[in-house]
């Protein structure tokens, strides 16, 4: 019986699921990771090869498929910097400069391994087509292709836990096929309101050998916002959204 089960399991692992299944799975992953509209706090920690760390704290709100606002709360040198994303449009507000500047998703806001695209990422299903899914080593492996060239990574390979339906590992590739970075999700936590998701994301990159970045998630909760919160006028007031 044991061998029959093993044979069945191997057969299942070898059978690729349809693209439609892949898209559905990707959408489920999105909903498990975060509600469609939410607020959350994130801490980004850049770790240098010698162990030195630099931390950034962000307050983020998102609405629907294409609206996101992120405010830096720490360190003091970055405090008040706000990034707004409306679909493929992105702006950066720096308090001293005093007006929002258009930026691209490829630019880095904080230096190190993270770039704007990691910080201002919308739902995976909003940015990527799920081309296929298969079972591999007890996980689903989703192959994702960017919907447009405004997305920082052309292809993603996403390993998804079969039970929790959340990513365990994501490899991000450039259009040339070059591996840009690998994201490792861990520390699944119950955030309340039915949100059970990883509370930690570690990133390493062959382009930044020896450097590592960690993103910690906290205070993830569903919240609705008016569309006007996601406007240039509101960027200087983003801090007022906190409760």
């Amino acid at each position, binding site marked *: 019986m044991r061998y029959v089960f093993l044979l069945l399991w191997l057969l299942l692992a070898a059978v690729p699921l349809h693209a439609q299944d892949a898209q559905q799975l990707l959408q489920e992953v999105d909903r498990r990771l975060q509600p469609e509209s939410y607020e959350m706090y994130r801490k980004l920690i850049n770790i240098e090869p010698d162990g030195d760390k630099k931390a950034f704290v962000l307050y983020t709100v998102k609405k629907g498929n294409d609206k996101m606002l992120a405010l830096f709360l720490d360190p003091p040198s970055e*405090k008040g910097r706000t990034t707004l994303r409306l679909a493929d449009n992105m702006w950066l507000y720096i308090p001293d400069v005093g007006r929002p500047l258009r930026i691209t998703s490829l630019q880095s806001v904080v230096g190190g391994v993270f770039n704007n695209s990691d910080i201002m990422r919308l739902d995976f299903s909003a940015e990527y087509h799920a081309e296929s899914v298969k079972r591999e080593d007890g*996980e689903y492996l989703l192959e994702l292709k960017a919907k447009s060239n405004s997305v920082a990574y052309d292809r993603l390979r996403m390993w998804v836990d079969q039970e929790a339906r959340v990513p365990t590992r994501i490899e991000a590739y450039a259009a040339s096929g070059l591996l840009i970075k690998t994201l490792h999700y861990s520390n699944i936590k119950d955030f309340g309101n039915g949100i059970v998701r990883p509370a930690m994301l570690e990133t390493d990159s062959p382009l930044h050998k020896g450097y590592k970045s960690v993103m910690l998630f906290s205070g993830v909760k569903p919240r609705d916002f008016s569309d006007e919160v996601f406007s*240039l006028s509101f960027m200087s007031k983003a801090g007022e959204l906190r409760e």
Partner: protein
Amino acid sequence: MSRWLTGLLLIPLLMPVQAEEFDFDISRYEKKPFEFSGHLEIKPEYRYFDQDSTLYRLNFPTADEQPSSDDRYSGVLELEGLYRSGASSLNFHAQATAQHDIYGGSGNADVFQLYYRHSTDTLTFELGKRALKWGTGYAWNPVGFIQRVKDPSDPELSREGFVIASLDYVKSFDGPLQAIAFTPVLLPVTHSINEDFSPEGDVNLAGRLYLLYRDTDIDLLFLTDGSRSGRIGLDFSRNLATNLEMHGELAWIHDQARFILDEGEAINIRRQDSTSYLLGIRYLSAQDTTYILEYYHNGSGLSKNEAERFFNLLHSAESTGEVSAVEKARHIAGQAGFFTPNYMRDYLHLRVSQKEPFDIVYLSADLTSIINLQDHSYSLVPGVNYTGFNNIELRLRAALNQGAPHSEFGEKLVENRIELRVRYFF
């Protein structure tokens, strides 16, 4: 078996990986009634003077006191904060500066902003001293009708505001017109309020209509005739590709006063309409190099001949050796804006910045140049910036001003300069 296998696979996910190492307490980031932040800056600077320049001779007219260089030390303290109650807040931003150079010690303290704000998601009311920033240009903003002129060689420095009352109404839509915002502003000028905006007292009305239309930022701006002559403007910004942004500004000023020096070295005020514009791009290469290129036409700027007359005026006053003649010439030239940055008509600004050169994280290197297209003089500013130390930012910059005699950058007092700026943020 299946559960056992799944459980085994989930173990790494459920383990609190290095949780003790990465602590994250969000309570210290929640909204509080008071917020306070700022930075302290020190900047030692070595300046090498151009002893052949007109400005050098004006600054050091006597032969027994003609230094070739000096050391300048400056310090800046900037404080920002707010007190909030419900949907209202009281905001402030102040700056204190001190410096010591060849002229001796000096200091200053200014309130850059102090204003009351009441806001909802769609409507914001502000009253008090406020620094509004209009325009999409990086180095210049011809449509910045009610803001102080920025320093093109360091455009990101904070600037003092004016006392205003303003409303801002914003509305978002689905469709090609994605957002609209309207900002009317009242700016009074009396002998004690906003007196540096203009010597002519009046209650001035300015406004901005912002549209996000088909992924393009568009602003329509105006300032009614009052303390300054009336003006209208337009600006835009759009991403042409994922790594290429284009922006521009156009301003038309009605009946603007220009100070012209006639052949007899008498100052004439000539009133005429003027048009200024700016066109720029920002490009990010695959190697993480950012290029900002801007062309600026200053419609009320001096022509090459007009500038030449001012140089001749200053030169002939200085050659008399009479202090009163020099002071008179300085006053005339100053009245015409001759000592302000970029007083002529056509300029090019190029900034090239490289993120993390030599794979050094938190380091950036940049080179900025402003070229006067009329007299072909230019400034060249190379610099490096390092933000790797917690709460400390280091910036090392040099500056070289080059140009022929009687050219803008060729006649600067300082020919070469090197400075180190250390900022501590709290």
